């Protein structure tokens, strides 16, 4: 399995990453992907920005471990994970997960698995800024239950 993870402040382009993942190979029948974006708040003050803090070193190791675990569960051909840190605006992409496999079932399952595990195991924290000030985002119980269904 060709696997790469990166944590960086720069954005990414899904088409470019997709092309790089499948370049020169014809054994890939399915690529499932996920992009998470900064979403405007549903209520209260509008979101001005979102800042992502992380734990350098541990973050990369945690992401790599999640990918290895996915590769042990499904026959994957290539995986790419990019997670941004720093200050982002509403609409900006935060995270990308791309999974290439021979068939769609395993590509979908592994992509969702990686996102679910990333949400509960990768050391990132989000802080929302509105005109009223900054507020750390609370962890969601639904993320714990999403991750738990794979064990």
């Amino acid at each position, binding site marked *: 399995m060709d696997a790469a993870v990166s944590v960086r402040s720069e954005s990414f382009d899904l088409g470019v990453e997709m092309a790089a993942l499948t370049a020169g190979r014809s054994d890939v029948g399915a690529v499932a992907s996920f992009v998470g974006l900064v979403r405007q708040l549903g209520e209260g003050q509008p979101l001005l920005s979102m800042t992502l803090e992380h*734990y350098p070193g*541990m973050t990369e190791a*945690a992401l790599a471990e999640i990918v290895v675990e996915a590769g042990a569960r499904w026959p994957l051909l290539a995986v790419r994970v990019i997670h941004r840190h720093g200050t982002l605006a509403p609409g900006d992409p935060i995270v990308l997960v791309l999974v290439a496999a021979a068939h769609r079932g395993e590509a979908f399952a592994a992509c969702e698995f990686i996102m679910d595990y990333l949400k509960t195991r*990768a050391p990132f924290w989000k802080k929302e800024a509105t005109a009223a000030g900054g507020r750390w985002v609370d962890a969601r119980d639904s993320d714990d239950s999403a991750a738990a269904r794979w064990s």
Partner: protein
Amino acid sequence: MVKILYFAGLREAVGTAREDITLEAGVADIAALRRQLAARGEPWAALTRGRSLRAALNQQMVGDAAALKDGDEVAFFPPVTGG
């Protein structure tokens, strides 16, 4: 000497991202380290309150029973909210 890192809201509360501390006699696991730091009072007292603040030892998530030794890197932080 053990390196302690704080992240996110906890980092802001304690006012520092990092400190180096000497383990007191008998402090041999994460649970005991939480108690040593909590003895300072607020805001460190949050480390023994409830179960919300997580710990990592040498960049691996661990439970309170994980054993400590000199030179370790320990991080404390709220539940993660990435992705």
